[in-house]
């Protein structure tokens, strides 16, 4: 990929990420409470959602304001580092179910459509 193509690819990737970052985050939190850095690293490593370093906190802040998650500071086992853990609320779980259903519905119709030319 040339230097000229790279920003264009990044921008395209950012556009595609817009719709899925929130869904992936809610899905991660459905496993149990986690802190911001852990969520960011898992979004990158496990979900392939390559968010910029600082993007996670405004997103968590917004979702908490919307009532989809709650947070609390917890002392780690080593006792040296309190961390802010986030957990899904009932509203967050309902939102996850709704976004997941929509994502699956969209995938079910879009994937065959996008693959139609290779299937011919």
């Amino acid at each position: 990929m040339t230097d000229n193509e790279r920003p264009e690819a990044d921008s395209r990737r950012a556009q595609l990420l817009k719709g899925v970052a929130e869904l992936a985050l809610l899905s991660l939190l459905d496993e149990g409470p986690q802190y911001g850095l852990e969520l960011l690293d898992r979004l990158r490593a496990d979900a392939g959602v390559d968010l910029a370093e600082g993007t996670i906190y405004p997103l968590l802040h917004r979702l908490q304001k919307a009532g989809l998650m709650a947070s609390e500071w917890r002392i780690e086992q080593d006792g040296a580092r309190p961390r802010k853990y986030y957990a899904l609320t009932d509203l967050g779980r309902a939102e996850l179910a709704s976004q997941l259903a929509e994502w699956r519905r969209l995938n079910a119709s879009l994937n065959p459509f996008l693959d139609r030319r290779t299937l011919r």
Partner: protein
Amino acid sequence: MSPASPSPEIAHWLRRLSWSLAAIPTPEREDIVAEIADHLRERTQSGQAPADVLAGFGAPEAYARRFLDDFELSGALGSQRSGDLAAAILRRAHHSLLALAAVAAACLLAAGAFVVVLTATYKVFDPTHAGLWSGRAGFFIGIIDDPATARELLGFWIFPLAALSLVLAWLAVRLILVGALRRIARDRPATTLEGAAR
């Protein structure tokens, strides 16, 4: 937090972030800054250079703007005060079509109510030339030069109508502003933030 002190570069960045978040109440602001400080500390302790870690957050003022936008939106929707609602929607009118449409609709409603109230006020001083008129050109509300060319329909009912239109316009404008802000808050994609992807 960890007893290790942050590097001067990170400490300076955090101070600027805290200043930029001044509009957010202290406990919430301190909470945001403490969480990010912890993140930066953990990254640098794992061997990353402070400058590299900070590059992923951008300028503190721009980064703070992301929290302030949310704070302003949720604050306006929470307080439901007309001034807060109007300020929040006006600040978004230059980059949101929905906010612009809400401002336009609110202005139209306010202008309509203003015309009725102005006509009613004028009628106090000049009852023969002000009112709701039906003439050859159709209906219009306002002041007429020659009352013989049209028929006035409301008489003194224009006064309760003016009061009613003022109340209805105010309620409708609030409904539009609240509806538009809720829609903007709900539909905002997760990463409308610049630099969503690394």
